[in-house]
């Protein structure tokens, strides 16, 4: 997949600027060890072993979520629930204060001498807007946290990687500059990978 090229200032700035070659700093491609495992269980064990072996930037690529990978990758608590809660509270507050401002402060309507502020009548819209903003923050919060959409990623360089969304279970290791790639490949094999590949980011 040849999409837009996006460098996210990884590992202390080997990202390149607009026309980076002219500024003296040349493009240093990111390298990944891409290891395929035979089953979700093997992937779990392999990930744990690689992490215990001292590799930092690990990620897995699987066609569906696998229980236990969060721990194997050493991930912290998910952030989405907090974001969604904030969205819901914001939605409810915005809706109620909007109604209050419109119908009580700015333009009170006297219909049958009913009070301008009728709390029960405000509940439906308050609820709906809370749901709308909570759902919206769940969706957009997820894509923001995941850094998607991001059409290009070095792991897509591998032809085998096309199976990651079908039936392949992959582990990718982002190698910092100066790391011995051969050692990492050997470690991945020792961790139980059935196929290991070294992929390099393409410049364009």
């Amino acid at each position, binding site marked *: 997949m040849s999409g837009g090229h996006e460098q996210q200032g990884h590992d202390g700035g080997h990202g390149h600027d607009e026309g980076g070659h002219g500024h003296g700093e040349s493009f240093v491609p990111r390298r990944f060890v891409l290891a395929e495992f035979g089953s979700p269980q093997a992937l779990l064990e392999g990930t744990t072993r690689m992490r215990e072996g001292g590799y930092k930037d690990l990620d897995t690529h699987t066609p569906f979520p696998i229980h236990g990978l969060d721990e194997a990758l050493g*991930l912290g608590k998910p952030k989405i629930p907090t974001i969604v809660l904030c969205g819901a509270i914001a939605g409810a507050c915005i809706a109620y204060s909007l109604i209050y401002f419109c119908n009580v402060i700015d333009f009170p309507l006297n219909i049958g001498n009913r009070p301008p502020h*009728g709390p029960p009548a405000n509940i439906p819209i308050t609820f709906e807007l809370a*749901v709308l903003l909570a*759902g919206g923050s769940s969706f957009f919060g997820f894509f923001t946290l995941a850094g998607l*959409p991001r059409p290009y990623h070095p792991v897509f360089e591998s032809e085998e990687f096309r199976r990651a969304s079908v039936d392949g279970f992959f582990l990718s290791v982002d190698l910092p500059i100066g790391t011995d790639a051969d050692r990492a490949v050997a470690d991945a094999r020792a961790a139980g990978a059935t196929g290991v590949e070294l992929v390099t980011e393409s410049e364009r």
Partner: protein
Amino acid sequence: MAAPNPAVVSQDPLEPVPLIDGKYTDATINNSLLEHVWRGAGKGWWACFAVALSMLGLLLIALTWTLYKGIGSWGNNIPVGWAFGIINFVWWIGIGHAGTLISAILLLFQQKWRTSINRFAEAMTLFAVICALLFPLIHTGRPWFAAYWLLPYPSVQGIWPQFKSPLTWDVFAVSTYFTISLLFWFLGLVPDLAALRDSSKSKVKRLVYGIFSLGWRGSGRHWQEYRWAYLLLAGLSTPLVLSVHTIVSFDFATSVIPGWHTTIFPPYFVAGAVFSGFAMVMTWMIPARKFLGLKHVVTMKHLENMNKIMLVTGMMVGYGYLMEHFIAWYSGNPNEMGQFFLTRWHGPMRWIFRVMVFCNVVVPQIFWWKRWRTSIPVMWVAAILINVGMWCERFNIVVTSLHQDFLPSSWRNYAPTWVDLSLFVGTIGLFSTLFLLFLKFVPAVAVTEVKELRHELAHDPTAEPVGETH
């Protein structure tokens, strides 16, 4: 492949019936569920598409006429101030509710059988809500003027919508419902679009599905947040779906018209929505599973479960009808009693009422028998009858209640015009067009979730070999 009809094979009711029929690997599931996308459109698809498009053309004509002439070209007039516009709105939005029920409520209840049908039903929700939204929009006559009393934007007139009006609640409920359904559907679709991207053979398809899959790479870091995002959207959709039809019912229930002025409306509307929604899922699912080759994931067990839900919700709706009559009698109000015991049963619109009772109360009773519950032709005909019955129910609520209200001197009959009928048929065309496009370009079954389910079943210690258990 296992026997085509597992319900017949399993004699013992306690013995689990397979949810995935036959033995599959991730790759074969992937290929079997995506195959219909790669396969060229057949003659049948083109034939259906041609019919749907011509109905859509009718919609455009009727819409243009409505906007050009105004809503005076519709059949409604005092006392029947609301007619086809609102009937169709309520009918379509109800149809959409089954999608949310299947995808969200059954997810929260961890009903594994939902996995095979949720994508399908969610798409239906989306398209039904699009059809529904059209009606309140055009029934205002000039929608571009309606914006200022529907949406709170700071206009030069300096006035605001009346937030105590159920019609304003409706605007917020339905637009929230559409947005959340769209986000939920798309979020579920992203991993499947990536699977499509990666199994595509041509460069163009790879590029197009690549754009829509947003660069998804199945990252473990993403899955962690993704699962929460998906679960929370399901959790939010559940009260949302209940609130939407409750608010729709408030449009009627907060008024004083006999036949509308009743407290049972919110639960009775929600039950009716689920009832009609499942009927619509069945109407489409039965041909789709045959022609798209989905029989191994949408098994007889799924169809039977949906029939059971129709039986239950059908009886809830029947209870609603009974209660309306009881409360009318119990109130001692002559207008209420007149509406339910004379107008509905014996008035000029009596046939619509009787068809409604037959389709919604009598027809679902056949699902008490396993033999009918597992017979494809029987359930398909029953589903269509239920769709008809639920449309008649909305007709009864809206038109029958209005055309004979309090003073006999102000009673007047109602008849739709060609514009009304074209708009209704036209939205069926819009729905069918969108649905056929969906079936052609997007996997009709949530591939990722079926793979996950297969692994879950495989690792269930109580389970038999993969795919053979429940």
